[in-house]
């Protein structure tokens, strides 16, 4: 029986549904409470920093002056254009964004710690802040860091020969300038950590809400100058990460420092305000994208000018280049683009640092390409599907203008299926009838590919100082015959304990519930990179499969001894090792014998290890949204949302669909709702969930999901990653649908989120123009 491909229920869920999950805040009970005194201004010099006049017994006030031995966070990118910005754990003299931690305050309770934060003294001589890239790039703008004069921290430039000629001689040139506003990933559980000190060993156990326990351990040990072996990092249940929890944050270093210095347990559990202002932001970008088309609507050349506001510091380990340079490298997406030119700049500002968020730059470039395609279609008199049909890559492998190889996929097929399911001619009739009644309906397409499951070759190409990518799995069978697989990746809601158990079970002839996936503990798992970049099913899955195959060989050799045959003659199925003539032994009995009668076998345990480091594979999808726009309020209702997704072999369809749905919800948030807003002085105006507004279940429509399964030849399991696709495709689909609904008014969406006031302002301007 094959377990892969079946929608078995998640092993993770019963505890979570009963409220018996164990999150960092559950572990933190009893620890001293840490709160951070944070900068109220975006830029300035600290002139006075002092503890409250009266400190209760046991209270602590910790500043940079207390930790002179602690280093700065300094992620590296080995590119000529990269300026290596340093982020102090706690600043000595200057603050660089509102919310930056300046001092740690420790008390016996959260209320008391909050009191002390209010009573501490922090005086800052304000300096002129730059919050937006236009301000940061203006001549004479304040310099955020001296190491990056002009505030450009990283730059990429490419212009293939022939781009200029193609643009000059094209039948049609379509230009699209747009703005993507800043977002926060907003996991249900914020960041948090509890550093426990073991007086017997001198080791610190940091329980943290993180996606990358091994990297966090390496980063903190380096910062504190401590032996890495004296630090254990545990990621317990993690309530969502979405990329926000894959960076090294100063707060964690402070917790470990406190535990070592004071030989006690210290915990910090972020509140929602801290998460919104001081964790990590993303997607604050502006692009101008331009394409040359021939008379048949085929792209001849593409050029893009990419600006990304990366905030005040560079995130570790991915660096602040992750947004601008991903947009730079992947702009053409699933389209045949023969010639390409681009310039990408990461701009420093006095704002919360940027870090990866589900999809990283791909929601933004997909928005750019898909809106550009619709606009070009209108200009060339083609319909939206037809212009895509003429440009989508349909012959694989395809080498892109930026040097990537697109493996077998279904760009055209996925779109055709979505268009067929939506019955566009029938929709156009409904749209016309509705418009006659004054109702505005629109339909939008979004076609994209998603680079997933990539190992060290892809990361090395980014020139990161630290090159993530591989995963190692240690697998062992207990004497009772259960399998333990220890993975370096660290799930935070993906159902990995279930899907990887399915992969392993199939290779060993066991049931998934006989397989335990051990993760999220640096003491118990091999060094690995974590769970991000749509990599876990592909890379941990491939390593699990390889490790299980090696274990299967061990079991077959042992079974051959018992069954008096050769290993080649043994099959593992239904919990048994089966030899010729149906002679068999239960795998559990075999495991017991190998451990307890090793004298008979010459095998001393049932443990294996395997690694996996694939080149990467591209999944793809077509999203299709139908919306109704209320012209009087600018409000948008999503009437239908359908997805045709190809993520290769689907390990567990229920979990795959959950990933798609969750991603689309965040993509719809990106399209219509969520926006971090700053005042010009860098103060942040969206510090609560009353002002930063993630949509709820009431705003997210039912989502129809259809799968195509192009089994990947680039991955061991045939699976492709799909964690980010939902968030990548949705903004463009929704924006194209709104633009379609308002096309007769000449309204076109070029800024997300497309909020009701923005849509209303576009309609008002269009009406005024029509009157004039």
């Amino acid at each position, binding site marked *: 029986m094959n377990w892969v491909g079946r929608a078995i229920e998640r092993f993770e869920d019963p505890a979570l549904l009963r409220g018996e999950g164990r999150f960092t805040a559950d572990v933190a009970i009893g620890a001293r409470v840490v709160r951070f005194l944070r900068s109220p201004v975006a830029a300035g010099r600290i002139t006075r920093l002092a503890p409250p006049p009266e400190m209760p017994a046991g209270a602590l006030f910790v500043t940079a002056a207390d930790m002179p031995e602690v280093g700065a966070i300094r992620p590296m990118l080995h590119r000529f254009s990269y300026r290596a910005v340093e982020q102090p754990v706690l600043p000595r003299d200057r603050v660089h964004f509102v919310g930056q931690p300046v001092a740690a305050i420790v008390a016996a309770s*959260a209320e008391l710690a909050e009191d002390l934060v209010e009573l501490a003294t922090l005086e800052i001589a304000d300096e002129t802040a730059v919050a937006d890239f236009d301000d940061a790039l203006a001549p004479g703008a304040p310099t955020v860091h001296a190491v990056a004069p002009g505030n450009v921290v990283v730059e990429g430039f490419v212009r293939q020969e022939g781009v200029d000629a193609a643009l000059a001689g094209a039948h049609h040139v379509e230009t699209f300038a747009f703005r993507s506003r800043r977002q926060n990933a907003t996991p249900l559980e914020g960041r948090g950590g509890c550093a426990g000190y073991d007086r017997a060993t001198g080791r610190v156990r940091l329980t943290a809400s993180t996606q990358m326990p091994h990297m966090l351990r390496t980063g903190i040990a380096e910062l504190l100058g401590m032996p890495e072996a004296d630090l254990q990092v545990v990621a317990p249940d993690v309530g969502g990460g979405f990329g926000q929890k894959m960076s090294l944050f100063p707060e964690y270093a402070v917790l470990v420092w406190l535990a070592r210095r004071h030989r006690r347990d210290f915990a910090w559990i972020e509140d929602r305000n801290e998460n919104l202002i001081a964790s990590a932001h993303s997607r604050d970008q502006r692009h101008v994208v331009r394409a040359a088309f021939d008379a048949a609507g085929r792209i001849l050349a593409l050029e893009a000018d990419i600006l990304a506001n990366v905030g005040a510091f560079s995130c570790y380990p991915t660096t602040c280049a992750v947004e601008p340079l991903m947009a730079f490298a992947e702009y053409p997406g699933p389209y045949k683009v023969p010639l390409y030119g681009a310039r990408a700049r990461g701009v420093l500002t006095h704002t919360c640092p940027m870090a990866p968020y589900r999809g990283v730059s791909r929601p933004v470039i997909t928005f750019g390409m898909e809106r550009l395609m619709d606009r070009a279609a209108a200009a060339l008199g083609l319909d939206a599907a037809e212009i895509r049909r003429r440009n989508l890559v349909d012959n694989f492998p395809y080498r892109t203008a930026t040097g990537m190889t697109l493996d077998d996929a279904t760009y055209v097929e996925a779109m055709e299926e979505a268009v067929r399911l939506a019955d566009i001619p029938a929709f156009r009739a409904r749209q016309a009838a509705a418009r006659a009644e004054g109702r505005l309906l629109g339909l939008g397409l979004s076609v994209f590919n998603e680079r997933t499951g990539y190992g060290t070759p892809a990361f090395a190409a980014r020139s990161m100082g630290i090159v993530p990518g591989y995963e190692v799995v240690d697998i062992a069978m207990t004497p009772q015959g259960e399998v333990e697989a220890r993975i370096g990746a660290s799930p935070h809601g993906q159902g990995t304990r279930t899907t990887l158990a399915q992969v392993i079970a199939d290779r060993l002839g066991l049931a998934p519930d006989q397989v335990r996936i051990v993760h999220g503990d640096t003491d118990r798992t091999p060094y690995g990179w974590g769970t991000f970049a749509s990599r876990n099913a592909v890379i941990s899955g491939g390593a699990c499969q390889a490790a299980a195959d090696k274990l299967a060989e061990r079991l077959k050799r042992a079974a051959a001894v018992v069954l008096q045959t050769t290993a080649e003659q043994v099959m593992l199925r239904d919990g048994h090792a089966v030899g010729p003539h149906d002679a068999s032994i239960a795998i559990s009995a075999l495991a017991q014998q190998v451990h307890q009668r090793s004298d008979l076998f010459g095998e001393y345990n049932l443990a294996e290890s395997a690694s996996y480091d694939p080149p990467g594979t591209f999944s793809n999808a077509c999203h299709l949204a139908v919306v109704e726009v209320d012209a009087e309020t600018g409000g948008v209702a999503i009437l239908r949302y359908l997805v045709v997704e190809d993520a290769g072999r689907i390990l567990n369809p229920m979990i795959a669909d959950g990933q798609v749905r969750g991603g689309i919800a965040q993509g719809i948030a990106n399209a219509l709702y969520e926006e971090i807003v700053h005042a010009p002085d860098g103060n942040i105006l969206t510090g609560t969930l009353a002002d930063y507004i993630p949509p709820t279940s009431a705003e997210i429509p039912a989502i129809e999901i259809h799968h195509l399964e192009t089994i990947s030849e680039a991955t061991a399991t045939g699976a492709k990653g799909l964690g980010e696709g939902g968030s990548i495709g949705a903004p463009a689909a929704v924006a194209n649908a709104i633009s379609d609904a308002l096309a007769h008014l000449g309204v076109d969406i070029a800024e997300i989120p497309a909020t009701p006031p923005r849509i209303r302002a576009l309609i008002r301007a269009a009406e005024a123009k029509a009157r004039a």
Partner: protein
Amino acid sequence: MAAMKPAAFDYHAPATLAGALDLLRGEEARVLAGGQSLVPTMAFRMARPGILVDINRIPALAYAEKRDGALAIGALARHAWFETPRAGGPLGRLLAAVVRHVAHAPIRTRGTFCGSLAHADAASEWCATVLALGGRMRCASATGTREVAAEEWFQGVFTTALQPGEMLTEVRLPLLGPDWRYGFAEFSRRAGDFALAMAVAVLRVEGGVVRQARIALGGIGGTPVLAKEAALALIGAAPTDAVIATAAETAAACCDPQEDIHAPAEYRRDLVRAMTRRALRQALAA
């Protein structure tokens, strides 16, 4: 680790109204009813009551019933009570229509009608509704009681005519006869959010002509306001689409909407026009 982080306060849960009023004489005393606005603002330390007077153990305050020709709503009447009409005729139906827009179901089971009036959020559906209906607020203190009309109640952002030491013990709403019509419309970003603009219209129509009209707007400034000019545009007229459009345009032209990160003033004016028109259409639909 405790999740609550308010500043220190004293807590009392008296069993009688007299006991509560006595405690309210204390410095910085605040009434805790449903706590759906007060407790979060305390957690953010935007509210720092020195004394919290929990009235939930005073059963005599839990009523919403007809008294002396009005609907009398006691201080412990929860929002959710109004989901089924608490008064006959149009009034009960109006409140039942409005309550569906008050926050979310869990909040409605705890939060109170009088609490909304005392908190006086400019985007509170109940505040705009009470203003449209011309309700009266009964305020009690250790030294006596007084009544305040809705027009005098709302004084500014989160500020009412309630004096230190006083408690809003009851709101009285006039019953509406069968020839009264009502409409309610609001626009909010998410279901249950505070609205960016709302309109409540209450009209008496006799012989096909509007005889009385009150329109209250909420969510557009520091307090709910009456759209008096818009109401005047309706009185004496047969409510045609053109008359409704004129009234809506008048409401938009005469209001003074505020600007914040969610809505420029011009946008709020657009919403006032749209919501007024929708509320009036609803009220005047056959």
